[in-house]
C-alpha cells in the first residue's frame, strides 16, 4: 500500500477538493501522469482533461479541468485549474460552453501571427470533441 499525501484541487472561485489521497492522475502537457507519494518536485501545465484521484476516504473521484498547473512538491500535490467541475456535474451544456470558448479563442487568433496559440486552441477543441462521447452517456 502506497503512502498517502495531500492533494488539493483549486479553481479561482473555490476549493474543490482537499484531502489525503494515494494516487492522482493528471493530464500533463506532455502526457497523462500518475503521481504517488514522494514524487520528485515537478511543475507541469495541464492539457484540458480529466484529473482523477483515489481518495483515502471516499474512493475515486474525477474532475474535468481546463487550463491550469499541477504543482507537485514534497508537501503534496496542488492542481490550479482555471476551470474545474466534478465529473458528475459534467453535462452537455458545460461541453457546449467550453467548445464555444475554444472556438472564440481560435477566432481571436484567426488573423494573428501567433500560430502556437491557434494550434493550442484547436487542439483543445479537438480534445473536447473527442472526450464528449466517452464521458457523456448518449
Amino acid at each position, binding site marked *: 500500500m502506497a503512502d498517502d499525501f495531500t492533494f*488539493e484541487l*483549486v*479553481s*479561482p*472561485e*473555490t*476549493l474543490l477538493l482537499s484531502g489525503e489521497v494515494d494516487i492522482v492522475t493528471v493530464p*500533463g*502537457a*506532455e502526457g497523462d501522469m500518475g503521481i504517488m507519494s514522494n514524487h*520528485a*518536485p*515537478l*511543475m*507541469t*501545465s495541464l492539457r484540458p482533461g480529466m484529473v482523477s484521484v483515489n481518495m483515502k476516504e471516499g474512493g475515486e473521484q474525477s474532475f474535468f479541468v481546463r*487550463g491550469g*498547473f499541477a*504543482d507537485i*512538491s*514534497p*508537501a503534496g500535490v*496542488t492542481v*490550479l485549474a*482555471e*476551470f474545474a467541475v466534478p465529473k458528475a456535474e459534467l453535462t452537455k451544456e458545460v461541453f457546449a460552453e467550453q467548445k464555444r470558448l475554444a472556438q472564440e479563442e481560435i477566432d481571436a487568433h484567426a488573423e494573428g501571427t501567433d500560430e502556437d496559440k491557434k494550434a493550442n486552441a484547436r487542439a483543445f477543441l479537438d480534445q473536447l470533441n473527442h472526450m464528449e462521447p466517452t464521458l457523456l452517456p448518449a
Partner: protein
Amino acid sequence: MASLKDLRNRIASVKATQKITKAMQMVAAAKLRRAQSAAEAARPYSQRMDVVMANIATAVGDSEGAPKLLAGTGSDKVHLLLVATAERGLCGGFNSSIAKLARVKARELMASGKEVKILCVGKKGADVLRSEFDAIMLPIVDLREVKHVGYINASDIAKQVLSMFDKEEFDVATLFYSEFQSVISQIPTAQQIIPPQIADVEGDADSAATLYDYEPDENEILADLLPRNVAVQIFRALLENAASEQGARMSAMDNATRNAGEMIDKLTQTFNRRRQAQITTELIEIIAGAEAL
C-alpha cells in the same frame, strides 16, 4: 413658519426614507455575507498562485529573455491605471476614496512627465474621474449586468489589458481597488500588476529552494502562467471590491437610518410643541371671549 400639516408631511417623508435606508442596509448585509464567502473561497487559489509565481520567478530569475510580462518592457513611460469601483452609489466614501487615490497617482505620474491612461471598471469611479481626465480615459468596463462577479469577468478584463500590453500601448499597469478589512474599514489600495511584484515566499527558504522539474519548460510555463496571474489579481481585486462595497453601503445606510431616527424625534417634538401651543392659544381665545361677555 411651517404649519402643523407641513410638519406632519415632513415626518411622514422622513419615516419613508428611513424605511428605505433600513431595507438597503439589510440587503447590503445579506450581500456582504455572500461577497465575503466568495472572497474567502477564492483565497486558496490566489495564495497558491503567489507561491507558484514566486517559485518560478526565482527559477527563471533575471535571465535573458525573461518574458516582458515578468520583467517589464524596460521603460516606464506609459502607465495604465486600472480603477475598479462600484456600479452603484450610496455606499459612503467607497467610490470616491478609490477614485481619489487614482487621481493622486495620475497627477503624480503626469507631473513627472509620464503618459497616463485610465481604464475604469465600474461606472461610479469613471464619473468622478471624467471631469479631470476625460481625454485619457479608455471606454469603461461595464459590470452593471453582472450580479455576482465571476472569474470569467476578470478574465475578460485581463484579456483586454493583455492585448493592449501586446500592442505596447503601456509599460506599467497599476490596479486600484479597495481592500476589505471590516464593515467599517475598507482600505483603498494600489497594486502594480504588470510587471508583477513578486511576493517573497513566506520565509521558508527550503521550499523556495526546492529544485523543481518543469514540464514543458520554465519559459513555456511562465508564458502561460503570467497572463493567468494578471486575471487572478484582477479577480481578487473585484471580489475584495464587492465585499468592500457592501460593507461600506451597510455602514453608510446604518448611519442614514440613525440620522433619520434622530430627525424624526426632533420633528415629532416640534410638532407636539406646536400643537400644544395652538391648543393653548385657542383656549385663551375662548376664555377671553367668554370673559368679555
